[in-house]
C-alpha cells in the first residue's frame, strides 16, 4: 500500500493543531496556491510504513550481497558517526577558513592519502560522484590536448568490457568512441589496439582489474602504446578495491584516475547520491584539476581556487562537493591505515578466488578458467541454459528465495548468460560456503525440477516482475486523482 493510499484528509502528524503563521517573509508570488498533495498520516503510520518497506529490502545489513562490479562491502558504523560530529555537520560552507581548519585538515589528509595509494601526482576531491569524476577526467584530457594546440585528437578508445559510463563520459566531452575487443583470455586485445591507435587518439579508458575480473597483464605494453601515439591513459577506479596497497595506477602509467569512494572507501552506495568521485592526475595534467582543493603551508590550510589554478577545468559544484561523504572516506582510510588497506585487497581477492575454485568443483563453468580472479569472477550458465532450459535470470531469482541478493547478471555484455560474483573482503568463509552450497542446491533443482527456478522467487512479497511492461510503460510518480 502506498503511503498516499493511507492518507486521510485532515489528519496531522503532531500533537495538537499548528497555528497558522500570520504574514511570511516569503514574497506572495512565491507562495504555493494549492496544497502540495502530501499524504496526511500520523507520525506512527509514517514510521511503520517506512520500516515495513525497509524490511522488504535486501541490504548489506541483512543479506550477503555479492553484486559484481559494485563492491557491496560493509561500511563500518564508525565512519558514519565520526563524520556526523556536530563540528563537521554544522559548519557552513561559507564560513571563513580560520573556522574550518579542522575539516580542511581532514580533506587535505584525504587528498594526500588518495595520492599515495593511487600513485598520482595530485588529487582533487570535488567531483560529486563517480560519473562526475569521469567527466572531470575526460575534460582534463581534453583541456591538456587543447593547451598543447593538439586539436586533431578526436577519438577515445574504450574496451568492449568497460562500464557503459566510459563511452558516455567520452561522448559528453565531445569525443567519438572506438571500441577495442577483449581477447579470449580476458586481456585487452593489444594487436587490435595497435591497429587503431594513432594521431587521432586522445586517450584510452581502462578499468584494471577489468570488469571481467582479471588483471590485464599487458598493462605496460598498453600504456606505452597509447603514450607513444601521444594519447593519455584514463583509469576507471571501479575496481580499485582489488589492488589497494598492492599496485598503483600511477605506476602502471595512468595519467588520470577517478575513484568511486562508495566502492573502495566505505561511503554509502546508490540511491542517487550523495556520492564522491575524486580525481587523481599525473604531473602534466595537474594544472587542469577541478577546484576547490585544499593546500597546506605547514601552518594553515587554505582553499585553492581559480586564482591559484588558472588552467583549471573549473568548478563542478558550488562548494567542495559532498564533504560529508569525503569525511566518511577519510575516517575509513584512517581506520585501515596502510596495513589495513593491504588487507582489503588481499581478502577481497582471496574470497573471490576461493569462491571461484569451489564453484568450479560444484559443476559451474568459469568464463576465464585459466585466469586467477581479482576481487570478482564470472560464471557462465550458457551450458545450463542450453541443456536444462534454465537461464541465469532463473538462478538469480531463485537465490532470492534462499536469502541471498543475486550477483550481477548479464554484465559484462560480452559474456553470455553470466553471473559476475564479488564477495568483498568483509564476508567470512561461512557466508561464502553457504552461498556456494545454495548454488549447488539450485543447480540440482534445475536438473530435477526446473519449474521451481522458472517460477522463482516464491517467498518474496512480489514474484517475477514484468520487466518488459515496466520498461515500456514507465510509471514512477504517484499523482492525485
Amino acid at each position, binding site marked *: 500500500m502506498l503511503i498516499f493510499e493511507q492518507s486521510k484528509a485532515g489528519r496531522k502528524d503532531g500533537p495538537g493543531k499548528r497555528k497558522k503563521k500570520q504574514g511570511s517573509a516569503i514574497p506572495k508570488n512565491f507562495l504555493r496556491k494549492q496544497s502540495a498533495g502530501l499524504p496526511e498520516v500520523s507520525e506512527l503510520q509514517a514510521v511503520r510504513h517506512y520500516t515495513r518497506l525497509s524490511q522488504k529490502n535486501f541490504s548489506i545489513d541483512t543479506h550477503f550481497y555479492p553484486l559484481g562490479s559494485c563492491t557491496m562491502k560493509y561500511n563500518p558504523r564508525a565512519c558514519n558517526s565520526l563524520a556526523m560530529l556536530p563540528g563537521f555537520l554544522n559548519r557552513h560552507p561559507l564560513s571563513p577558513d580560520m573556522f574550518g581548519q579542522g575539516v580542511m585538515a581532514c580533506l587535505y589528509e584525504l587528498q594526500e592519502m588518495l595520492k599515495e595509494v593511487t600513485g598520482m601526482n595530485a588529487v582533487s576531491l570535488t567531483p560529486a560522484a563517480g560519473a562526475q569524476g569521469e567527466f572531470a577526467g575526460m575534460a582534463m584530457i581534453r583541456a591538456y590536448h587543447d593547451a598543447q594546440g593538439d586539436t586533431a585528437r578526436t577519438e577515445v578508445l574504450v574496451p568492449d568490457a568497460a562500464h557503459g559510463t566510459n563511452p558516455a563520459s567520452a561522448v559528453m566531452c565531445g569525443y567519438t568512441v572506438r571500441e577495442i575487443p577483449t581477447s579470449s583470455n580476458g586481456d585487452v586485445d593489444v594487436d587490435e589496439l595497435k591497429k587503431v591507435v594513432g594521431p587521432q587518439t586522445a586517450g584510452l579508458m581502462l578499468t584494471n582489474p577489468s570488469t571481467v575480473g582479471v588483471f590485464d597483464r599487458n598493462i605496460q605494453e598498453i600504456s606505452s602504446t597509447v603514450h607513444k601515439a601521444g594519447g593519455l591513459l584514463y583509469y576507471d577506479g571501479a575496481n580499485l578495491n582489488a589492488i589497494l596497497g598492492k599496485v598503483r595506477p600511477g605506476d602502471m602509467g595512468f595519467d588520470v584516475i577517478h575513484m568511486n569512494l562508495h566502492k573502495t572507501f566505505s561511503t554509502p552506495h546508490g540511491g542517487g547520491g550523495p556520492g564522491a568521485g575524486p580525481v587523481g592526475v599525473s604531473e602534466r595534467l595537474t594544472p587542469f584539476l577541478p577546484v576547490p582543493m585544499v593546500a597546506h603551508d605547514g601552518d594553515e590550510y587554505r582553499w585553492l581556487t581559480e586564482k591559484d589554478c588558472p588552467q583549471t577545468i573549473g568548478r563542478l559544484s558550488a562548494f567542495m562537493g559532498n564533504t560529508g561523504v569525503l569525511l566518511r572516506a577519510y575516517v575509513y582510510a584512517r581506520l585501515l591505515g596502510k596495513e589495513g588497506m593491504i588487507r582489503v585487497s588481499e581478502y577481497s581477492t582471496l574470497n573471490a578466488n576461493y569462491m571461484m575454485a569451489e564453484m568450479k568443483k560444484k559443476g559451474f563453468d568459469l568464463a576465464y578458467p585459466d585466469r586467477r580472479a581479482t576481487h570478482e569472477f564470472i560464471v557462465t550458465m550458457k551450458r545450463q541454459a542450453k541443456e536444462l532450459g534454465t537461464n541465469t535470470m532463473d538462478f538469480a531469482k531463485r537465490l532470492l528465495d534462499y536469502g541471498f541478493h543475486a550477483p550481477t547478471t*548479464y554484465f559484462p555484455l560480452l559474456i553470455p548468460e553470466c553471473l559476475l560474483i564479488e564477495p568483498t573482503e568483509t564476508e567470512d568463509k561461512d557466508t561464502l560456503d553457504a552461498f556456494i552450497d545454495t548454488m549447488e542446491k539450485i543447480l540440482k533443482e534445475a536438473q530435477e525440477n526446473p519449474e521451481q527456478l522458472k517460477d522463482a522467487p516464491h517467498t518474496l512479497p512480489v514474484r517475477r516482475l514484468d520487466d*518488459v511492461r515496466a520498461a*515500456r510503460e514507465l510509471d514512477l510518480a504517484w499523482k492525485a486523482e
Partner: protein
Amino acid sequence: MSNVPVELKYTKDHEWVRVMDDGNLMVGITEHAQDLLGDMVFIETPEAGGKFEPGQEVAVVESVKAASDVYCPVAGEIIEGNEALADAPETVNSEPFEGGWLFKLKPDDASSIDDLMDADAYQELLASEEH
C-alpha cells in the same frame, strides 16, 4: 538453432538484408540477435534521407537486457524507417524477418550486397559463436 531464411543476406553483426522488387534493401536484425537480446522495449529507427556508410550506426534496439546499435550493412540512403516499431517494439521479437524490419535503404551500388554473407556463411558464423 535459429531460423536463417536462405533468400536473405547477412552481416557479422547479425543484421539481415532483403533485396526488394524495386532493387532497394530492407534491413532488420536476425532471429538469433533478437533471441540474444531478449524482449525489446524501445526501437529507434532512422528518418528518410539520411546517408550512411557501411558500419555506421543507423538504428538502436533496446531490450530489457541491453541497448545495441544497428549498423548500416552497405552504403546508401534511408528511404524509410519502420515507424510502427515505436508503438510495437515486440514485433522485432515475434517476427524479426517480416514486420520487425528496421529500415529501407537505397544502396549507392546495387552490387555492394554481394560482399555480405549468404545464409550458409551466416549459419557457420552462428555455429562458430556457439563455442
